[in-house]
């Protein structure tokens, strides 16, 4: 069942790629159909999901693949991966609906996105490091073609930068994986086995070096300061749907890796380096917020808020490693907040990037200076943008609040230094209010005239994302009931 969820979009991609004579309209709707089916399947999974015992997996499937190197096709979900699988299908469905008005090679784009969806789902479902790496690497390849093929401006350059940076990260990750493999006895790439064995316990420097390789790989992908420089150009030049997927899903591959691989497999090294991770998190939060505040380009601003938001996740997972002098409950809240933040950020930033894409569609620009007073000609756009902005700055009632509240409660409970990141919330609030002010209110800008309001496809793609953010904000239990047991497991594993 889980394999069907993962590979259904791949089959769709193959059909879309092979059917060269398919009319554009059919291709667009086929894409929507595929993503909706997959979404339905994931909802089914969610309904059937029962929290597995600690260290166990739900819907696990294992098939022999590379027995001689201790690798197999092993997939399964737990409370960390299930919400992210759901997020992936939701974001991709929103993109498929948004792209119903796409004019540039819609069939190829649909095929590429379906392929990309399989790679993202595969990463979250993988329970084997090689399988994880396979999907991780292929997601980079697919995203490269999305940016290079459908981007604008200096897309080729940005795509190259994205590919080189993230590929560097993925190779660092591979080196770390090989280190884990060789340390385990018997040698294996299986994630649950490696988690159970925690092979580098008590190995001192080697454990630190392997963790360093894994951390660099994941930090590039997340991205955290100082590895974030590929992100703003990639976002600025990517098409709207590409940005939504990049920010909404691909960034989570990095933070997910912290929770799935780095923390449970290398607990001793993680605790030793927790201070550094917390510091990187705090710097990412503040730096991302401050640089976002200085942007004159809407998309770049949202891109930098992603650095800020991912910083909260890094802060929380780092704080979860500060074991001495903190209680497990606080650390558990931090991890739960980190996972909630991944879901929340995916929904809200996905919506924000799609809305920013509307600016480009109508006026060919993302510059604040070109717009102003959009609330007049485009009230629905203004309303949606304002809601998304408030959700992103962490207003109570939205998912961002639930996530950030947990992140700060847990992190500050674990280490007082986490409080240094608090001004990040303030700066983010300021920058989003300023963005609303500059875009939606005031005198019309040079490109505000005749700005068309949201069309049905745009409403139906961004609307559900925001509704979900509100639902999680008001009724978070359905999500937290899934996440919390898994967070508890992670915290106990790190405390070993």
């Amino acid at each position, binding site marked *: 069942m889980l394999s069907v969820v993962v590979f259904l979009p791949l089959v769709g991609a193959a059909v879309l790629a092979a059917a060269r004579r398919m009319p554009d309209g059919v291709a667009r709707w086929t894409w929507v159909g595929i993503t909706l089916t997959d979404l339905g399947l994931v909802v089914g999974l969610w309904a059937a999901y029962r929290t597995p015992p600690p260290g166990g997996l739900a819907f696990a499937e294992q098939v022999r693949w590379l027995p001689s190197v201790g690798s197999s096709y092993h997939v399964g979900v737990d409370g960390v991966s299930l919400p992210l699988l759901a997020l992936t299908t939701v974001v991709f469905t929103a993109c498929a609906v948004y792209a119903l008005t796409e004019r540039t090679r819609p069939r190829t784009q649909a095929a590429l996105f379906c392929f990309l969806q399989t790679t993202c789902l595969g990463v979250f479902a993988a329970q084997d490091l*090689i399988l994880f790496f396979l999907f991780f690497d*292929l997601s980079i390849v697919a995203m490269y073609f999305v940016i290079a093929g459908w981007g604008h401006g200096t897309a080729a350059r940005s795509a190259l930068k994205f590919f080189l940076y993230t590929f560097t990260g993925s190779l660092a990750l591979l080196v770390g994986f090989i*280190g884990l493999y*060789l340390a385990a006895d018997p040698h294996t790439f299986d994630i649950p086995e490696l988690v159970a064995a925690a092979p580098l316990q008590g190995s001192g420097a080697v454990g630190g070096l392997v963790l360093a390789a894994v951390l660099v790989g994941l930090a590039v992908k997340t991205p955290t300061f100082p590895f974030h420089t590929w992100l703003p150009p990639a976002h600025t030049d990517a098409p709207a749907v590409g940005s939504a997927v990049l920010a909404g899903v691909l960034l989570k591959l990095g933070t997910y890796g912290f929770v799935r691989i780095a923390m449970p497999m290398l607990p001793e090294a993680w605790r030793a380096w927790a201070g550094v991770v917390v510091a990187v998190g705090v710097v990412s939060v503040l730096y991302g917020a401050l640089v976002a505040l200085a942007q004159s380009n809407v998309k770049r601003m949202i891109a930098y808020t992603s650095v800020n938001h991912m910083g909260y996740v890094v802060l929380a997972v780092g704080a979860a490693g500060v074991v001495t002098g903190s209680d497990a409950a606080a650390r558990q809240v931090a991890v739960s907040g980190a996972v909630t933040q991944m879901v929340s950020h995916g929904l809200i930033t996905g919506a924000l990037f799609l809305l920013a894409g509307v600016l480009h569609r109508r006026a060919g620009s993302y510059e604040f200076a070109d717009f102003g007073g959009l609330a007049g000609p485009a009230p629905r756009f203004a309303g949606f943008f304002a809601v998304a902005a408030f959700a992103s700055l962490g207003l109570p009632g939205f998912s961002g609040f639930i996530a950030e509240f947990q992140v700060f409660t847990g992190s500050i409970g674990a280490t007082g230094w986490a409080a240094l990141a608090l001004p990040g919330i303030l700066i983010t609030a300021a920058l989003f209010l300023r963005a609303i002010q500059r875009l939606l209110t005031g005198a019309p800008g040079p490109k505000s005239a005749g700005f068309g309001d949201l069309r049905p496809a745009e409403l139906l793609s961004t609307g559900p994302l925001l509704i979900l953010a509100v639902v999680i904000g008001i009724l978070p239990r359905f999500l937290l009931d899934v996440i919390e047991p898994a967070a508890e497991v992670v915290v106990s594993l790190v405390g070993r």
Partner: protein
Amino acid sequence: MDEDPLALLPEICLLAGAIATLLAGSFLPRQRQWIARILAALACIAAAAAAIVALASPTRSVFADSYAVDPLTGTTRLVVAAATLLVLLLGTEELRGSPRESETCCLLLLSATGATVLAGTTDLLVLAVAYLLTSIPLYALIGSTRTARAAEAVMKTYLLGALFGIVMLLGVTLLFAMTGGTGYAGLSTAGSVVPAVVAVGAVAVLAGLLFEAGAVPGHFWVPDAAQSANTAAAAFLTTVPKVGSLVAMFRLVDALPGVADWPLLVAALSALSMTVGTFAAFAQRDPRRLLGWSTVSQVGFLLLPVAVAGRAPLAEPSLLIYLAGYAVSNLAAFAVIAAVPDRTDLAGYRGLGTSRPWLAGALLVALLSLVGTPPTAVFLGKLTTFTAAWDGGLAWLVIVAAVNTVASLFYFLRWLAPTFTRAARAGDMAEGHVDRRDLRGSRPWAERTAVLAAAGVLLLGVGAGSLPILVAVP
């Protein structure tokens, strides 16, 4: 003493095929030379079939312990035969009706025989003969296009080949003097005589093999030859001799006495090869020259398992997996080049993705495989060789290899980026460039070979884990 000639059936098939091709070519009229080509292809198929049968039988050593019939030899035979067959297929249109049709086929088979013997032998004298049998046909192959560039390339290759050949013979002489025999088995005890002389002799023998493999410092001929020879010959000389000589190096390093730090020496050569190859490929604009330099860096990666020969259980299977994956990926890339002979620089590949999607897809798979992206064949090779090298105590080399992998991505993207950019320029269309170059079916065999090889890349990447050579790892 085992002197069963049937133990050498795959080699005999290739050699007999070469002779049959030569004779047939001598008596057939120009327009029926294709019969010679068919003969050559049949010889490859027969050799591959014999190799598979031999792989299933137990390991043995034949002809006074001068030739090993084991998984190393068996896999090399299979890879060499299959690679030569792919070369013949991708060169179908290029060779058809050319003035050197049967001669080219004969030379390919002779060199392939030499490469197989190179891999299988455990005797220094046979190694020297195999070196000559592999390299001499290459000179003729490179020179057969008769252009000024080819003349320069063949001169370079010949001079370097002669130099390294002499050095190798010198090494064989020294080792013979020290051990009183030419078998590899006697080498392990040679250290007690005069360690320094044994070390010099061994380095000299390795030097010859480095030339054949196109590794630093014997790499200068590779890019020139790859650029100036015809495509089939270029595909062959960047693939088959490497397969044979790397396996030969593996055997030799495994057999050498500990008179020097062999892992460190090979690791240094490996690091140099991959770095030189990668950085020289950065500035290339001719895809064939780019691939030529890329193969130099690939040999660097292939030297990783050689460096830890006998020190890590994964060393041998990882070498074989990487060799097979490299051969099929490299040939897929050359088959794409063979299918679009008029596109001679990277920018010329603009629009291929739209006009010939299958071919562009094959190129994508081939180049991503050479970079080492899963789930392709070379990814599996890189994964296993990295693991073997780390296991053998060369973690620093794994880091160097990972950095070089990232760097190699850059020049392959310089090729892929235009391929998948649409040729929307009005000028191109007006001059009729795109239409003329992309006449559908102008080189169907080369295109089919490219797609076939690309499928092989994926198949090997996904399925190689179940192959006996990997399953047998302890």
